[in-house]
């Protein structure tokens, strides 16, 4: 019966094994995922908002993101100078702060990967690949934003908040879906 359902590509929701079961039991996997995702997301963001964690982990990490971004812009011939987390050229200056360091997208990805029913090996592999990929996209974001600010300054505000934040978060969500589809295998039978 389960085989028949899985081969039907237009069946969005498989028929639950016991239609008489209470809501929480029928949707146990979804509810477990959603609860774990919310707890992990809230917990991790609360953790990074602590002063000690911010000063000893997030700020140095943000400094590293700024240095790599500055070096990339230098390679692109932008002649930038670094002042802490500020990247400055003759045309434009940008301060890399929390929110521009890709940590939010990484934590959303981390919470989704850890909440999904998968073996630890797949989770660790996913987290490693995801962290690198999200930072790569974030590097493109910082460089693109700097160039936008330097050459199309009127577009900077919208690009900064709406465009690139959407792109980076969408990337992390799609990365999670692809990871779940390719690398994750459930720990328990999914049907019955």
């Amino acid at each position, binding site marked *: 019966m389960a085989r028949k*359902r*899985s*081969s039907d*590509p*237009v*069946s*969005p*929701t*498989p028929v639950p094994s016991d239609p008489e079961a209470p809501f929480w039991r029928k949707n146990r*996997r*979804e509810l477990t*995922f*959603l609860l774990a*995702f*919310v707890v992990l*997301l*809230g917990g*991790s*963001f*609360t953790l990074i*908002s602590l002063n000690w964690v911010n000063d000893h982990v997030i700020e140095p990490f943000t400094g590293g993101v700024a240095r790599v971004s500055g070096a990339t812009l230098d390679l692109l011939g932008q002649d930038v100078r670094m002042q802490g987390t500020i990247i400055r050229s003759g045309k434009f200056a940008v301060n890399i702060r929390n*929110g521009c360091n890709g940590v*939010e*997208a990484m*934590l*959303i990805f981390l*919470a*989704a990967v850890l909440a999904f*029913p998968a073996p630890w090996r797949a989770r660790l592999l996913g987290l490693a690949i995801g962290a690198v990929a999200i930072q790569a996209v974030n590097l493109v974001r910082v460089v693109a934003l700097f160039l936008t600010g330097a050459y199309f300054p009127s577009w900077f505000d919208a690009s900064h*908040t*709406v465009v690139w*934040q*959407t792109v980076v*978060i*969408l990337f992390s*969500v*799609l990365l*999670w*879906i*692809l990871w*779940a*589809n*390719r690398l*994750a*295998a*459930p720990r328990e039978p*999914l*049907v019955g």
Partner: protein
Amino acid sequence: MTTGKPRMSWAARLARNALLWLIPVWAAWALLTPFYNRFLITASENLLHITESPNATRIIPSGRHDALVTRRDLPPSKNLAHSFRVTDVHFHLVLLGALFLAVPGVPWRRRLENLGWAVLVAVFFDLFLCFFVVKAAYATKLGSWSLAHYGPFARNAYGLTRHLLDLPFKLGLPLLLWAAFYLERLLEEVRIKR
């Protein structure tokens, strides 16, 4: 017609569709943003009035994207000049729309129905986020007035709630809602791959 050509996986088709939907959803969102901003400003002002007696908060639209928060009970010299970008509150709707419209193998009627429910939840979320943006400003940004009207616990609670709603939950909401509707489908795909 497609013989010999390897079929893309469900997840890969979803990713491709999401990228394709991004631009049209963006355009629709940009078109509706001025109206939605007005709605959020009015609705969140009314929500704030529920917690006030007498009604003191005024949220005034400022340009296409911003809002200015003022209080009637403050002298003009101490008027709160707190403004926030209303458009930043709800840009996650772009992500939400693209993700919900992109799911392959689901009939259109079902996709739109799910999107409608998800948008409804997101509207309530945006409303509460606006509420907490203003409350956090009252609790932490008005100097002696804040200290006189909010205790340390309230200041921390409003500040942390605003922080959590404004960053992780605003950005994570599309994934959360998508999972609420389509996690079963994703798990089914994982099971087929096994």
